[in-house]
């Protein structure tokens, strides 16, 4: 049989079947007694009714599946912009097909069926915001596609929403938002290396976010003639509007005062030498008096200098200049290092000795029940405290040390968190190794504290930019090493 013969045969068969159906229908209609002229309408009516039942059943089936899918609680967890995203959900593969997630393309993600019924949404979100994605799927043949909304939210990268605004103090040349310094002290005449100072201070992200000045300040010096080192760090109170000046005045006053006191001070150095021989009470008290003359008087002078600045500034009070202050004077003698210090406020000042893993904290941070309730140099009651010497001043002789650290709470809070940890030598070991290693995950290199490494100041400046959620205060770190 050729093609046209095949078609003709099929046509004949169909015609035969139709004729048979028509005569069967006629016989049935005769039997029931349906008049000839109403038979067509009756047939239409029957089909209509059966069609209605059929579609209703179909719709019900679809609705049941839709409700089942909705009750699954399919959701997409929130994501972060430019961070790889992956989430999966499962739908009953025997009930739904042709699953699509409408609106997914514009988010930068894609949905794929990883195994029957398991759908994975993957990719990297392009922009932040709420996206009301629509999950659509086919259920029953002949029914419209079903749709439900699945919202997904992408958050901005927390690091990207910190603004970086220069402060007006920076713009006007009054105080830079970041600064670093290296004091290189060349080797002794006998060739043995002498300690250097590296120091850096940066405006915290919270200040940069609003273009507020850096409240922290430091000053460091080495006097070539007398070989004394002086290091000072101050942290202006965030709530005090002129504290960026307060910290500056405090440190600068200390430097000026110490420069004067330590210039050719034979009496003082003799007292230190005598004390090194015999640390008995009388020699100790002689030295304490001398140290007080330098250290305590320095703090008083700094307090007074701020007082004068407040007087000279219209509509300003001393508390507007509120600042902490820590400073240390040190010198290497044949019998060891003499170190004396003063500390009011929070932060940390510590001698670290890598060889035996020991530390010596030069005082205790003033921390209230809540952080932020620290003591300030600008508070008069500090100087009325009869225990001021015991509480705030330290002096002593140590054989040698790896580093003397002075830091504001912008560094000590994220690095040590609590006062207990500050007293823990292991935590200082961890801190120094972080200083060396940097933060490779964030692309922040470490600080190379080898002798005469002038690059250390820029390394330290970079290092201070480490990320620590919830810690965005100004950061200052001074190291004598």
């Amino acid at each position, binding site marked *: 049989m050729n093609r046209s013969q095949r078609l003709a045969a099929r046509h004949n068969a169909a015609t035969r079947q139709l004729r048979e159906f028509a005569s069967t229908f006629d016989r049935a209609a005769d039997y029931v007694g349906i008049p000839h002229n109403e038979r067509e309408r009756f047939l239409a009516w029957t089909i209509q009714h059966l069609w209605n039942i059929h579609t209703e059943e179909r719709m019900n089936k679809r609705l049941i599946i839709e409700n089942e899918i909705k009750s699954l609680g399919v959701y997409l967890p929130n994501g972060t912009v430019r961070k790889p995203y992956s989430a999966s959900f499962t739908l009953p593969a025997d009930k739904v097909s042709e699953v699509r997630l409408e609106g997914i393309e514009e988010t930068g993600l894609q949905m794929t069926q990883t195994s029957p019924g398991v759908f994975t949404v993957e990719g990297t979100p392009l922009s*932040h915001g709420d996206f009301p994605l629509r999950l659509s799927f086919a259920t029953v043949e002949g029914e419209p596609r079903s749709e439900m909304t699945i919202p997904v939210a992408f958050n901005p990268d927390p690091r990207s929403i910190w603004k970086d605004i220069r402060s007006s103090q920076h713009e006007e040349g009054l105080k830079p938002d970041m600064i670093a310094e290296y004091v290189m002290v060349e080797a002794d005449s006998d060739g043995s290396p002498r300690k250097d100072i590296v120091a850096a201070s940066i405006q915290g992200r919270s200040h940069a976010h609003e273009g507020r000045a850096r409240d922290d300040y430091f000053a460091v010096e080495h006097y070539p003639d007398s070989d004394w080192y002086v290091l000072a760090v101050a942290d202006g109170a965030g*709530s005090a509007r002129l504290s960026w000046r307060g910290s500056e005045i405090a440190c600068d006053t200390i430097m000026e005062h110490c420069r004067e006191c330590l210039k050719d001070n034979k009496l003082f150095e003799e007292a230190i030498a005598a004390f090194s021989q015999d640390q008995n009470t009388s020699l100790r008290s002689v030295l304490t008096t001398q140290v007080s003359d330098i250290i305590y008087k320095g703090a008083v002078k700094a307090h007074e200098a701020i007082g004068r600045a407040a007087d000279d500034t219209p509509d300003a009070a001393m508390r507007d200049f509120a600042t902490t202050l820590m400073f240390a004077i040190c010198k290497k003698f044949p019998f060891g290092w003499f170190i004396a210090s003063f500390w009011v406020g929070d932060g940390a000042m510590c001698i670290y000795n890598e060889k035996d893993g020991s530390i010596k904290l030069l005082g205790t941070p003033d921390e209230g029940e809540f*952080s932020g*309730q620290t003591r300030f140099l600008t508070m008069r009651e500090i100087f009325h405290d009869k225990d001021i010497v015991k509480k705030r001043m330290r002096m002593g002789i140590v054989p040698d040390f790896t580093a003397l650290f002075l830091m504001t709470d912008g560094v000590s809070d994220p690095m040590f968190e609590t006062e207990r940890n500050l007293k823990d030598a292991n935590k200082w070991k961890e801190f120094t190794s972080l200083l060396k290693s940097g933060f490779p995950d964030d692309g922040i290199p470490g600080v190379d504290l080898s002798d005469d490494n002038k690059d250390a100041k820029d390394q330290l400046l970079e290092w201070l930019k480490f990320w620590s959620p919830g810690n965005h205060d100004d950061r200052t770190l001074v190291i004598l090493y």
Partner: protein
Amino acid sequence: MRKLPVYLLLDCSGSMYGEPIEAVKNGLQVLTSTLTSDPYALETAFVSVITFNTDARQAVPLTEIAAFQPPQLQASGCTALGAALELVTKCAENEVVKTTPEKKGDWKPLVFIMTDGEPTDDIRKGLEDFKRYKWGTVVACAAGAGANTTTLKQITENVVSLDTTDSATIRQFFKWVSASVQANSMKVEEGGGELSSIGELPPPPPEVNIVI
């Protein structure tokens, strides 16, 4: 990382049906989108939603704001405020990290309570539990004419009222809640501790009245 916990206690009783509950849902969206675009809040704020009607239930456990998804809310039943106070205290005891010598704990939680009616349960037990816990700022909001500010005053000093429960007013309330959370997360990141009274919160919009 020290969390700044925020507990939202939301009345989902039958009287909230319709526009008010829709407005609350919308308000939670406002809160989420505001806080996720603020660098301070995004790093520190953790939000939990406790709903109360015939009983109280923690609809969302304390969740960092980046992962927070507003819950489904349905209004029906009565106003078990006492149960909600009891539950929030229990939740805070479990979820908020306490300070130890080695680790600084979380900041004191902020609590925002919103109700449009009288409590239908006995609030004494819940109130007693609630008062034992050390909260940060607690703000109670009497939404609409049906709410009793005297009852709320027993819970906290800081009571505000909304004249109506229409969507615009409720939206303003949530905007103010968002601003308060922002201000608080900024303060804690600056090392200033928690805000402790309503006077330290951002000034409320005209729709939100402070009840003295």
